[in-house]
């Protein structure tokens, strides 16, 4: 599996992974989260565990079990951390703790390093026996509901370190806090190279013409992704430039609002035959890959965003990306270099027109963007950062480590 990344990931990342693999040889690395499938965390762990094992590390992945009430509470906690107003009572916190206590009895928590993903299993730290305990927060906590954040901080402070995805998510905590961006897997179904035949298959399936300029946004039908804004921008562009717009997204079963937003979008589209709304079922990774590889310009016009890895996915396919200046998008788009950051419908339309009318600039930006992702947002970089900070915590006190 490790060999799959040779020639794709930077040589130095692979070299450092091997060096760190030797330093941490036969040590155990336990990951705990709350779901085996679905969601970005599970997706990355599925790929990461075999790579760690190949490096000589005894990697293990455990999942906590909970009932509907538990996950209802953790959903509320999740939403509150993202800034929604939610009521999380003392009784709920007690139940959250109780379920973690039961899991602690069931799971083997012995390891040299233990990485706990997100708030669901955070109380497990109370049952710490040995090893370094690190809490990994994947959520946008830049503007959390204070009471919920404060309660969770009681657990965080008991860890040896915490990891956030973006610097602005980090809080003033009395423990080491690291910034590790999420990543994409270049050899996964969503990002691997496709043959012309595979791409054509997807285009035939959705009746997408290959000979026209294609503007694409891949995202859930969520107001924060601003699908109506994307259509408005497309209409401005259309005045002088022939093009089609594809809005592709999976209907989110856990989001009751998505149906409402989808209906609003359909109404706004009216009978425009050049707007394609594609409702992709789960596991449509190859189709998304093919659409991204066919598009002329890719948008991620989010008004609010966690990290927005769809931007890196698009950049990896060598496409210029126009993104809303929200969440982690400005970390991926260096304005004017790897794409454009926009703040309005008008700005989006202007940048789309600019890219459509300057194929050379589009190509240059796409190439720069792909290299930027290669250096900064591939899974190999994320693994080497996890191992580096583990090694640092074992050699605490030194800010420069010579290997």
């Amino acid at each position, binding site marked *: 599996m490790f060999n799959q990344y040779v020639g794709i990931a930077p040589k*130095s990342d692979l070299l450092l992974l091997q060096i760190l693999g030797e330093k941490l040889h036969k040590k155990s690395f336990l990951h705990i989260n709350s779901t085996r499938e679905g969601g970005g965390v599970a997706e990355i762990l599925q790929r990461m565990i075999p790579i760690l094992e190949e490096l000589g590390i005894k990697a293990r992945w455990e999942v906590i079990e909970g009932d509907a009430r538990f996950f209802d509470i953790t959903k509320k906690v999740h939403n509150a951390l993202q800034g929604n107003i939610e009521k999380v009572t003392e009784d709920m916190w007690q139940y959250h703790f109780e379920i973690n206590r039961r899991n602690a009895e069931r799971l083997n928590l012995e390891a040299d390093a233990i990485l706990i993903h997100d708030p669901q299993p955070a109380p497990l730290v109370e049952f710490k026996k040995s090893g370094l305990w690190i809490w990994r927060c994947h959520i946008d906590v830049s503007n959390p509901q204070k009471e919920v954040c404060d309660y969770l901080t009681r657990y965080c402070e008991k860890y040896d370190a915490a990891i956030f995805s973006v610097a*602005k998510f980090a809080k003033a905590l009395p423990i080491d806090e690291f910034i590790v961006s999420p990543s994409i897997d270049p050899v996964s179904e969503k990002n691997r190279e496709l043959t012309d035949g595979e791409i054509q298959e997807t285009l035939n399936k959705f009746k997408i013409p290959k000979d026209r300029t294609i503007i694409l946004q891949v995202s859930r039908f969520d107001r924060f992704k601003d699908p109506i804004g994307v259509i408005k921008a497309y209409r401005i562009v259309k005045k002088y430039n022939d093009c089609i717009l594809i809005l592709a997204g999976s209907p989110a079963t856990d989001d009751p609002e998505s149906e409402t937003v989808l209906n609003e979008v359909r109404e706004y589209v009216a009978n425009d035959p050049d707007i394609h709304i594609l409702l992709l079922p789960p596991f449509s990774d190859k189709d998304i890959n093919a659409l991204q590889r066919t598009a002329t310009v890719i948008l991620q016009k989010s008004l609010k965003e966690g990290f927005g890895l769809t931007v890196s996915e698009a950049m990896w396919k060598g496409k210029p990306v126009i993104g809303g200046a929200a969440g982690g998008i400005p970390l991926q788009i260096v304005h004017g270099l790897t794409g454009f950051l926009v703040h309005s419908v008008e700005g989006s339309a202007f940048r789309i027109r600019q890219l459509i009318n300057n194929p050379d600039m589009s190509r240059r930006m796409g190439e720069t963007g792909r290299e930027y992702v290669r250096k900064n947002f591939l899974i190999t970089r994320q693994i080497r950062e996890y191992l580096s900070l583990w*090694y*640092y915590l074992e050699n605490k006190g030194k800010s420069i480590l010579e*290997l």
Partner: protein
Amino acid sequence: MEEIMPFEFKQCISILKATGKKAKNVHELRDLISTVSDDCIFHHTYQYFLKGHILEYTNDFGHWAGESLEERALSERLSNIDPYEFKDITDLRNELINEINEYLKMFPEPREAMHGDEFYFNETVTLIFPVGIRARNLAEFLTAMRYINTPTIYYHFYEARIRLGGGIDDFSRWIEDVFGKKELANRIRSIDPFMHNLEEIKQNIIEEVEEEVRKDMEVIDRCLTSM
């Protein structure tokens, strides 16, 4: 025959550590610059060159003042600071504070950053490791330079200045110490570290060394024809 000391190529990578401190305007920026750790100042100044960056800035403070606050005059002042001129972080820190104070005398009420666009103070942990390439002569060095990546250039060209002092980098020191090629060493030292990105620095060094290797080959050629 005395053994030649080979040049061992190394690389450094950094992992980012958050301090949890942030500034939303120039006043807060100055106050925090005066209290954050040396590691933090080091990261936002010296390590700026390790990142893909816009050429007109030379540190994160100047970059933020220019891009997020749009305080152009302040960003110019801050970007004119050469971190390698100072004997330690304290002196550099004082110079940053002086520049901000001078600016605030002229513009006492600068604007605030938009929410989410504040300056976040970070530190780093740096890991240094050999990349497994050694060069024993200039021709090998030239070939190696074409293979190595930009973080290796950062370690030997920028980070070395802090270790060695006096505006000296690892490449020119090895070339001078081992081969006595003072002129080539000086040509490498005269590459402006602030006016190029890491890839351009690499290309500049390759060009200088290539020129030298070519000249050396021509000397041998002339020797042969005079025989």
